[in-house]
């Protein structure tokens, strides 16, 4: 059974190039397949593709659904969700 979790983008500038890059880097550290979609759109895209993540055009306040499936799915989901919890960190440029 794949695991899912709902997260919210808190970065004032949204999920842009740098946060997207971090997200993709973290996703690719796990064996599980991680997917992501906008809560208002049923189509999942590959969270390991920076272009897919950028195309979500997730602005501040956007709700996103994460889905992980694979041997380390719980760890993968926790790691990715933690990125959102840490407020996509106070980046100094993006």
């Amino acid at each position, binding site marked *: 059974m794949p695991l899912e979790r709902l997260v919210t983008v808190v970065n*004032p*500038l*949204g999920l*842009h*190039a740098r946060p997207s890059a971090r997200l993709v880097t973290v996703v690719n550290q796990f064996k599980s397949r991680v997917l992501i979609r906008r809560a208002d759109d049923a189509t999942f895209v590959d969270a390991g593709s920076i272009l897919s993540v950028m*195309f979500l*055009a997730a*602005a501040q306040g956007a709700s996103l659904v994460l889905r992980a499936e694979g041997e380390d799915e719980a760890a993968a989901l926790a790691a990715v969700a933690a990125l959102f919890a840490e407020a996509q960190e106070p980046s100094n440029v993006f």
Partner: protein
Amino acid sequence: MSSSPLTETEVRFAGLPASPGVGFGRVVRLVPQSRPPLFINVLPHRVTLEIERVKRAMQKARRHLESVKRHFREQAGQGSAYLLDPYILMLDDAILTQAIEDNIRQRRINAEWAVKQAVESLLDSFEQLQDDYLRQRRDDIRDVGQRLIAMLSGQPMRLPTLDAPSTLFADDILPTLLAEMNPTNFSGIVTDAGGVTTHAAIIARSLGVPAVFGAREALDRAVEGAPCIVDGSQGEVILHPRRATQTVYLGRRAAEQRLRRDGLASARLPAVTRDGVVCHLLANIEIQSELPAVERCGAQSIGLFRSEFILSSEADGVPDEESQCAAYRAVIAASPDQVATIRVFDFSSDTLPSDARVAEANPALGLHGARWWLANESVARSQLRAIARATEVGRARILLPRVTCLSELQAARALLDAVCRELGLTGAAAKRVELGAMIEVPAAVLIADRLARESDFLSIGSNDLVQYLLASDRGNERVSYLQQPLHPAVLASFSLIVAAARAANKSLTMCGEMAAQPACAFALLGLGIRRFSLSPAALPSLKSALRNLRVKDAERFVAQALTLDTARAVEACAATYLDQSRLER
């Protein structure tokens, strides 16, 4: 640097201030070396070979960018190196690789053309996005595409070698190419295209290289080897500068370097004078990417957001209410106290978006500031709606620029009230939106008491006020000696404004860079100003200056200064006081 004043005249032009600092160097023109890719149909058995070529090129480009990242980390520090991650990840991205492969397989075309097509269709998809910031990331995809094509064609992009201080002139610059540059001898960069929020601008700022972007026809005007000054703080480019100009800019460069050396050490300390008077330091900002610097530089709030700068990232025209609202929300949310002073669009006939530009003989005395804004009611209305809606994340102080008559303030108030009613903002919610007048026209100084009565707060725009009071254009070098912020007329004006704000019990903020000069900060303190809004970079040194001053001394100085006859006399008097207090320490 020597110029040849007999043969070459000084040429000045302006662009967007993309990376601060002043640089002196000679022009190096960067013209694209690689030819556009050729379209070739390939035979069926070549298809797999072309796909192999693409894979190898991607791998090579990725390895190359990894090395650029290492180089950039050495130059700009660990904190900036991640800027290259999106490019590296794109060169590994399934969507891009798949699109290129499909092109080759289905259309039997060569790798170069397949890359070109795939990049173009991605760019089209980006064009559809609602989000302005993301739409600007087109440059990044274009960058990756150009790198790939260069790798495929076996002509890797070559960097100019800079043997002496040099300023690069280009039509546009790839962000990753900029990251590859060595900052030694790199005195500046000027481009025809580009904006202040592009990755190239961010990279230039990380490298500390002064940059002016969006300077139209810059490449055409620049002759290889011509001496040049780039002022990335003001957005100015000067070719063949005269001796006098060089002196002015050498001074500016020294001041900027001093500021950087002083560092941010004092940013965390409270802004309290030696005799315990609390001051408030706020930040002037123009673009959203400056937001993180606000807190880092020790600002407690955003004292001036120049909203017309959200237009420079737009192709043309005023952005719609939704995108404006998102921008204002980001500004308010990023302000340390969730309060932002947002100045409504301040245009004059020569700074309007190109489609609306009109010719006026004298733009500084024409339909500008509040006049233009009130004359364009639909623009004003949607801006007010956007700001009012953005206050769900905090509070907004709406600032009306270049107010001349009380009736302008009243008209703006009526419009704001109407918008609040429309949006159902009443009671406490309506109180989150305040309205204030910016005092920068001499007439406004003389009716400051009336303006204070009907404003929720007042701000002084010192740059324009000095310019209008002394009837001299700060961009005109022949009268630049008249930029005298300590002119007795300026001091007397400030004194009137402070009195008006005090009598009406309204907050007063000084917006402008003059407070960055110690003598001016001393005078403003003595005049009774306690709220200062400056560019974030100027705040740390202002704070350390304020912490070394005493209000008691400043008031004694001002009492004397108001009786003096000339700016020079005031400056000399300030110097005496400041020397004295230095000796006491």
